[in-house]
């Protein structure tokens, strides 16, 4: 059984009068609880692929199944529900809600997406705060946190709903190398602790080698599928 499977997956955008094929006949599968990276230069299609896996976008052709759900068959409302139930997101710019505290940012999906009762919400958020070692920052707002701390909060928010899949689009791009490395380590430990599948995109060779499996994208094609050490060596 796979968490994600793509068969002859393509995505074409219309840019003015020009049709731009961002993803071209891609085939791959991702196993449960794996730690996977998509690598490639800017414009290679990494974000497009992650958007489709995250049910934010539909394929133009081919089949993309996420947790056995055909993404193409989800309408806007169903896709939102599916994301809320099964997928966590970590963004390059952290995308924390500025008016909410660390605690409230992590609590948000439980409160506004999954409607958990307050006591259960509190317990779960405290568990995640502890897991990302941010208990002492619970009352701070995002503008009072460093980049690394913000991304820890974002990871906790992504994991708080027990998602089976976490998607992270360039999660280390806005962080210095040491912090980036620690964030990847944290994501890996979260995978180990919670069993979620992590898929992240990066163009940093040092970061990509931390993945257990790496898909290299070039001009919309998945050229190679390596273990991470090989990919990093070839990058």
């Amino acid at each position, binding site marked *: 059984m796979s968490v994600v499977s793509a068969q002859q997956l393509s995505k074409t955008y219309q840019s003015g009068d020009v049709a731009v094929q961002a993803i071209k006949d891609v085939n791959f599968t991702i196993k449960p609880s794996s730690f996977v990276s998509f690598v490639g230069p800017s414009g290679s299609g990494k974000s497009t692929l992650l958007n489709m896996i995250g049910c934010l976008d539909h394929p133009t052709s081919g089949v993309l199944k996420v947790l056995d759900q055909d993404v193409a068959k989800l309408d806007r409302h169903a896709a*939102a529900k*599916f994301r809320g139930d099964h997928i966590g997101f970590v*963004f390059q710019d952290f*995308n924390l809600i500025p*008016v909410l505290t660390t605690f409230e940012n992590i609590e948000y999906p439980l409160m*506004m*997406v*999954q409607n958990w009762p307050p006591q259960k919400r509190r317990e779960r958020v405290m568990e995640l705060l502890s897991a990302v070692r941010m208990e002492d920052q619970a009352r701070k707002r995002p503008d009072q946190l460093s980049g690394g701390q913000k991304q820890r909060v974002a990871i906790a928010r992504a994991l708080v709903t027990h998602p089976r899949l976490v998607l992270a689009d360039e999660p280390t791009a806005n962080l210095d190398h040491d912090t980036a490395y620690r964030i990847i380590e944290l994501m890996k430990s979260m995978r180990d602790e919670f069993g979620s599948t992590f898929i992240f995109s990066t163009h940093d060779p040092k970061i990509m080698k931390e993945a257990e499996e790496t898909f290299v994208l070039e001009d919309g094609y998945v050229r190679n599928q390596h273990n991470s050490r090989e990919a990093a060596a070839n990058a």
Partner: protein
Amino acid sequence: MLNTFRIAWKNLLRYQRRTILTSLLITVGIVAVLLFISISGSFKAMMIGQITDSMLGQMQVHKRGYVSSIDNLPLHLNMPPRMKEKARQALAELDNVEAYSERVKFGAMFSNFTETTNIRLNAVIPEDEARTAPLLADRIIAGKKEGALLSKGKILVPEIIAKGLNVNPGDTVVLVANNKDGSVNGLTFEVQGVLEGISGPGGRDGYMHIDDARNLLRFEEEDVSEIVIRLKNPGQLEKTFARLDKTLSQYLNKQDKPAFEVHTWDKLSPFSNIAGMIDMLTLFIKIMLVSIVLISIMNVMVMAVYERIREIGTISAIGTRPGRILSLFVTEGLLLGLVGTASGTIISLIIIAVLNVTQLTFSFARQDNLVLAPDISAPEVLTICAVVIVVAILASVQPAWKASRMDPIMALRHV
């Protein structure tokens, strides 16, 4: 729902100055509307009360054609006893009638033996008139106020004539009048008191006892010009009018047309036009309030959506349903409306209370020292509040709808 309110409230506090300014705008609008309604409403109610309680009553019954000729005070259009009796029977069937007064209205020459002028007179049964127009006694500014409103052989002189002819209580005056047949008769009367003039028809009329008028006019029968009616509950005026009109309209004259005509006070007084204008102004002010709320909240919410596009993309990506996003922004608009409405209402009620305590006075037409006593009913306040809150919600719907329909990918890319 409580969570949505919590997040919405935090979002409003994000731009405190904008939120305060918008709430302030709504507050000022609410205060303006509630104060205008309370002041104009109390002014209207006071003037209507003065007119109906001291002069017109809430309804009047006449013989058909009398009102259109009322400037001439035509004696030949008086109601003969048989008509009067039918009107009395009809009034007896109405629960809402508190009292009625039968009047003979006529014009006469008024003389203090050295000068002469015209006078319009209402000849009344004093006890009935006092019950029907209870504020009439308050208009007596000189002379005896205690006891009967009027005694036989005495007359209440309007202020304008008393001043013009230098007539005082206790003086003897002569009234000369033409009767129905055109013959002239004159009688002397003692001035019992001087009546303060008020605006509107009959506001400068004198009063005398109905028996004196019948002697002066040499009535062979006990005709009356009009029957003035006071209601127990003026709020039921239209309903009572409809019943009385229906009952009396069954009596036909020789031309097979209704023998009676029934009028409500507003058909007899030009003040009804002023009251109508006040109502129009109130409506206009309400429309302005709705516009202020609509434009200010819509403006704030459009800005809020534009400034938070990436945030909308984020919450949409992590699974917030479109309906929840819509409700979040609508709740922000609702809260803005609620805050403005609550503060505006509280401030208005405080100002109304202060105005009532300070007892400010004002003048209107020939009346001075009218006390400003603003008052507003709870249903009126609740209606205004409900309208503002509904408009606040409606103003938020379009921006909220736009936010809920946003493509998360485009929103996340927004810089």
